[in-house]
């Protein structure tokens, strides 16, 4: 056992390859900025919310205007099937 661990002591230090630094810098610069990602997500969420609200209010208006039109129309204007 003692000799086994002594073998481990003989492990030599190794210099990392020169290309490693460039690899690290490339991957750092390739990565998108986290703040930009958050800002984009917030913008999309805001856009969806605004769209939902406008769609809902458009539907409400449409319904109420139709209702008003039918109620206000004179009896003569109603068309029946023959």
């Amino acid at each position: 056992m003692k000799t086994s661990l002594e073998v481990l002591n003989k492990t030599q230090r190794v210099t990392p390859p020169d290309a490693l630094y460039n690899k690290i810098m490339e991957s750092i610069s390739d990565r998108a900025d986290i703040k930009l990602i958050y800002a984009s997500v917030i913008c999309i969420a805001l856009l969806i919310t605004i769209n939902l609200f406008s769609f809902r209010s458009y539907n409400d208006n449409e319904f109420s205007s139709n209702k008003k039109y039918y109620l206000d129309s004179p009896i003569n204007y109603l068309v029946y099937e023959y």
Partner: protein
Amino acid sequence: MINEKVDFKNFYEKYKELVFNLALNYTANKEDAEEIAQDVFETVFKKLEFFRYESKIETWIYRITINKSLDYLRSKKRLKNKFLSNLLFFNNKDGINEAVNFNHPGVEFENKESVQIIYKCLDKLPNNYKTVIVLLKIEGEPQKKVAEIMNISEKAVESLFFRAKLKLKDLLENEKDI
């Protein structure tokens, strides 16, 4: 940005050997160590501005490298197990779930075979046993520093190392029997 780059370059030059060799001593594979070192420096680059200097920067780098190495080995082992169990349709218990694919450039040729067997057994040890052996025996760090890195007392390091050695001895004997 230029200053940031220069600072990081200096930082990299100062700690590249520490990170690379520590990762190499965990994985015993040059390519894996490169991948871990890359991951460690990316994390350091992102988190350096938030470092609170409550501990030494070197201790912090040691901890990041150890955690990344253990995570890497764990995920590699899981991937290998999944692949093999899919391939063979059953779980083989011995031998095939090793994460270590031996390619350690720091090991002399005449010791290669015995070190390879030790690494095979080291891979089967619990993480804290493996860490204490790597730091004390392979990295050759003093007990005090190991205690600081592992965030335990010196006495705890001593007893952990004793238990780790016993377990490793058991595993090595089993390996010889096979």
